[in-house]
């Protein structure tokens, strides 16, 4: 399967993980409306690491929210693993988030009462199952993959910012999602640690064959991206 990215013209190949078509998102009502997304289309293949940069208010967070099913677009569709998110009722969309989408948030968006391994096992509970031995093994392997197996019993308060972000990445991969949606992963980290995290994301994207969409305002973090999309006024701009 191959297709042409509207914004960049790149030809991408491999299984399509995310396919967003003609997304429009109008926020507010009456006279006070803002067009956050203006006819945005985007496709991400397995193993592809797409970075979206842009100033605040450019619509990049809205793109993440719509692709993650946290916000319904005014029009357009979002296909993840062949399922159109926008056609699903809220409950089904929520459940789909737990199995098909891995979110990586800004630092400290972990549950403060849970140890690193429990952050990952929470994903199994959220998906409606009780963790099995296989789940525990997978959680440990994922933590080892981000270099934290030895610190798996520490809670967020006992880990550094960079370590917490690594736990967040491992958590996002726990339920073997189709895509990773990454929100400003380096905003709370210094440059070196930020770069490490982005490298890790790029490696994990290939290793787990997910499609990754990362939103960032930091132009120094783009070196490892397969593609970089510049966003302005709710549209992609050719870079």
């Amino acid at each position, binding site marked *: 399967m191959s297709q042409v990215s509207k914004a960049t013209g790149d030809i991408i190949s491999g299984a399509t993980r995310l396919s967003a078509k003609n997304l429009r998102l109008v926020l507010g009502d009456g006279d006070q409306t803002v067009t956050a997304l203006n006819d945005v289309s985007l496709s991400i293949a397995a193993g592809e690491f797409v970075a979206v940069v842009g100033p605040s208010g450019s619509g990049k967070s809205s793109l993440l929210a719509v692709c993650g099913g946290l916000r319904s677009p005014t029009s357009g569709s979002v296909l993840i693993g062949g399922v159109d998110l926008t056609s699903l009722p809220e409950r089904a969309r929520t459940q789909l*988030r*737990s199995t098909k989408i891995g*979110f990586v948030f800004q630092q400290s968006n972990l549950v403060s009462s*849970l140890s690193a391994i429990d952050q990952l096992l929470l994903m199994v509970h*959220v998906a409606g199952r009780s963790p099995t031995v296989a789940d525990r093994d997978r959680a440990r392997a994922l933590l080892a993959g981000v270099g934290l197996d030895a610190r798996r019993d520490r*809670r967020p308060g006992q880990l550094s910012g960079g370590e917490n972000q690594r736990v967040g990445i491992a958590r996002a991969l726990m339920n073997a999602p189709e895509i990773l949606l990454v929100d400003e992963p380096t905003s709370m980290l210094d440059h070196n640690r930020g770069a490490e995290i982005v490298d890790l994301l790029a490696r994990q994207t290939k290793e787990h064959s997910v499609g990754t969409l990362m939103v960032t305002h930091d132009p120094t973090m783009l070196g490892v991206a397969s593609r970089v999309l510049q966003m302005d006024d709710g549209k992609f701009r050719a870079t």
Partner: protein
Amino acid sequence: MFLALKDLAFAKGRFALMATVITLVAALIVILSGMVSGLVDQNISGLKAVRATHITFELDRVPSYTNSFVDREMWTAFEKAPGVAAATPLGNTIFNARVLQKETAITLTLWGVVPGTFMEPDVAEGAAFNSDPRGVIVSQDLVEKGVAIGDVIKLDRVLTELKVIGTAASRNLGHVPIVYAPMDLWQEATYGPPGGPAPGDELPKALRDYASVIALQLKPDADMAAINKLDEETGTTTLSRIDSYHAAPAYQEEVTSITAIKFFMIFVSALVVGAFFAVWTIQRTQEIGLVKALGATTSWLIRDALSQALILMLGSMAAGIAIGLSLGAWIATTRASFILVPEDVTRNMIFLLIAGMIGAALSIRRIGKVDPIIALGAER
């Protein structure tokens, strides 16, 4: 329940505060239940010991042992009525009195009972009613105040003298210890002139025709409709002995006020639990948004939070019951009476649990309003 348990363990301090409140309320409810049962039991211990199945009062809006006034015509009518195995008048008057030679001032409930009837008390020590027309049997409570067999009690104002010939177990009405007297002596004290009749005079015959209530022993197959009809004809009200407790002084007030205290405590617990979970849920808003963004449904989160409330309630209530029972056991060793009625405690605990869970549920509802989009940094 995964998150619920982890949060309980993590935020021990905050939950401990909440648990302490519920523990104390549960303990207090157990103690109050025990003490009120003890108090109420002490109030009407005299009535509990009476071998009557029913008590007949003068027709009044609210039957009262203190105010009731019956005459011979009434108790004769009941004696003869079908279904009545035995009927006998009972006199009930409260007196202040002094124990001669001891200068002890006491308050007593003087009961006039007809010797030889089922109303005669069981004697613990000393003699039963005998040929001595002034011989009385006193409640154990008066013995504890220093009254002994052989003492003479002189009633204030009417100056009637009573000779203590025997004692009974602790018997009270309205918390005032009972002194059992032969009916003639009671009528003399209650209706006669101060100091008794002038030397050589007899008391007027008429005062032998009055008492306070009628004690009945109904046959098991007695027709209550017929008894009620007789009530209408004679101008009386017949209550079962247990229902007649409410006619005892202060009984209704005691039961009502303690019940009110218990229900207010349960109500306050619901508010406290509700307030706690309201604050807790608001504190967790960010986390709730996060977990929703990760794919948890609202019902998953609500089930999780309710299980947390349930664990907290059950744990605290168990601790409270344990504390209440041990304190109750200690109270029972002192002079205060403490009687634990298991059904009563169980019922109150179920009310407490339901109230707490309703309070929690109302607060936890707001989980449904949290938008998972707050998990994204730009949306915070």
